[in-house]
């Protein structure tokens, strides 16, 4: 198999792709990892993932991106995969107001099931469909600022801002981890035993399968 486990990277970051059905999550993923786009890509059943290795500030970072089913019904299964994620790309469709309105719920999902320090990028996808636009870029920007999220409008079809969105998230994660590592070193020097801040769960597959049935009532 081609997917031999390699250790030719400095960091492995787990990112989750979330958002309503049909906003283009799978196409964002395929555009980013394989530079592919398909108009009739099938709905995601459960979870799928893909990886891509890239350079961030001279370090090799492997991004493991988990693509999740958008339908509410799959929430219990997909939310199990939030564990161990250090970043999230929360996608809505700029031509469907409802998918933007639901961003709030997705944020709640993340708050309930993901690490509290997770880096979140909100992406208004399908920016190429300007004639069908239902959510202004300004509204997206304002919302993101209010919630403290990064924000970009993307187009998986035109390959616009997709790379940048991931790059932004991964860079931010890298900075946080760097800062944590420094702080931990500092703490270690000062107090002897290793500080807790050094534990970074980037891959936590052990949690993934076992807690699928956890209830996500809010």
């Amino acid at each position, binding site marked *: *198999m081609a*997917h*031999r*486990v390699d250790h030719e990277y400095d960091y492995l970051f787990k990112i989750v792709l979330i958002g309503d*059905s*049909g906003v283009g999550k799978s196409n964002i993923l395929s555009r980013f990892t394989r530079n592919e786009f398909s*108009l*009739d*890509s*099938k*709905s*995601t*059943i*459960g*979870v*799928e*993932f893909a990886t891509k290795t890239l350079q961030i500030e001279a370090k090799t970072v492997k991004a*493991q991106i988990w693509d999740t*089913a*958008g*339908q*509410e*019904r*799959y929430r*219990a*299964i997909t939310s199990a995969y939030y564990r161990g994620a250090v970043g999230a790309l929360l996608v809505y469709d700029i031509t469907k*107001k*409802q998918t933007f*309105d*639901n961003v*709030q*719920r997705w944020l*709640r999902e993340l708050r309930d099931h993901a690490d509290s320090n997770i880096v979140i990028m909100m992406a208004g996808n399908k920016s190429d469909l300007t004639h069908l636009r239902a959510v202004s870029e300004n509204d997206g920007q304002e919302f993101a600022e209010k919630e403290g999220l990064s924000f970009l409008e993307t187009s998986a079809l035109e390959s616009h801002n997709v790379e940048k969105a991931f790059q932004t998230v991964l860079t931010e994660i890298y900075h946080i981890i760097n800062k944590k590592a420094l702080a931990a070193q500092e703490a270690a020097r000062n107090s002897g035993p290793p500080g807790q801040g050094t534990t970074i769960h980037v*891959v936590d*597959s*052990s949690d*993934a*399968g*076992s807690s*699928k*049935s956890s*209830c*996500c*009532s809010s």
Partner: protein
Amino acid sequence: MKGLRHSRSSSSLPLASSWIHLRSLLIVASATVPDRGSLRSPWSRRKRKHALSHRRWHMLFSSEGKFHDGGIKFIEKVRSGLMGLSAVYERLASLSLDCYDLNSSHTERNVTRVQIRKKYETLRRKCHQLLSHCHKGNRLDTINEVSNSASSCFDEHCEFHDSQDDPSATRNIAEGNLYNFKVDQSVHNGSDLFSLCNLEEIEDEAEIVQFDNYPWGTESSTSDEDEDETESLLGSSISEMFVQHDPKLTRIPSFRGDFTQYNRTSEDFATWQRIIRLDAIRANSDWVVYSLNLTSVTKEKALQSAASVGLKSYEHLDPCMIYHAARMVAVLEAYAVYDPEIGYCQGMSDLLSPILTIMDEDHEAFWCFVGFMRKARHNFRLDEVGIQKQLSTISKIIKCKDLHLYKHLEKLQAQDCFFAYRMVLVLFRRELTFEQTMSLWEVMWADQTAIRSGIRKSARGRIKLRAPPTDDLLLYTVAACVLQRRKLIVERYNSMDEILRECNNMAGTLDVWRLLDDAHDLVTSLHQKI
């Protein structure tokens, strides 16, 4: 009775020609299917040698259209995978046989055929009402209204509530709190009952529903002349379809207990309508070749059908795929109304798409789908009890067969077999081609039917199947699929993620006959333990 006479009198001429048409179509199609001779499975060779011919197929029936032997021979044929490519026509039968009594005659099937068409039309009318309701007020503002309508169509009076004046509900939705639909439902007295009785309804349908499929040679087209007759046969209210008939509560023991969980979903009919349309336009376009009428769909007809179900965003599709998508919407919506406990869940379109491809009439496809979903619906349940149970059975099979592999999975904390989730949920649809999918499904169908109708293993079969029929053939097949990769998994995979990726990338790499061979071996050796 006018309707019945009508349908009987105009019998099989158009079908004979369409049969020939289909046969020739399939010969063309078969040329594109990889030569199975290069694959090692002994099944593939047997299959070609002994495939059921059209003539033999007809010999299975008496002049009244009854199976001579109650269907034993036929089911044996299907179980041993002998239907073959040339028998796709008969496949209609195997799928639709799920819907009626194996011992029914031509005439009996005719009667019910009229009934079920009418029932389907009633469901479609309800969908239309819900859709126009939704369009009236535009998007978000009316979701709640439609939700109320959706729930109200199961209440006794079958009338719409008008909740347009309820701004709080609208606000709730805008804020992302869509819970009000299910709460509304519980306000309707005994909303949990409606789901129960609805399940019962499905069970009932499975027994009484019968409809003609082409091999019996009745006309399949619908006629308006039937309308009045069927109306009186059925009664005009949809509520009759949801009358409670002594629900077998034991069949779904967890449902009542989990009602709070059922409530927690925010999904409503409007959501289903939206997602159904999303998925309908994402069907497999490479299947067109297997369809009898898709290739001849004119643009005008396609646009018309799209408009009739309110389909949008299909500009990139060919007319035949627009038409297919519109049919998907019609049948899936009707199913959501028919089985509101399940409604619509992504993945269901994967199950319907092959059925629609080979069936020209929506109402026939619908009842086939209902029969099909009788088992599959448990996988789509909100409380996940169904899917969990199935995955744990797979886990058990692997444990019994290959403890070493199981221990490795345990080490990776993958022993719950979650990596097989998609295979179980959509019955290998994402992994297999159309032809392979149909082959697997019909063998599975035959096993289940053999159990339901009490047909046990017979020594008379051309191939003496060692394995007894099982309801869980799918699970044995999934286990076989995992076991075929045991070396890879044990030696090279160090996390659940890697196994999941392997499973998600299996499309185009599976040999369905070898899988079935292995699955049957597993059944033979393990069925008593599992």
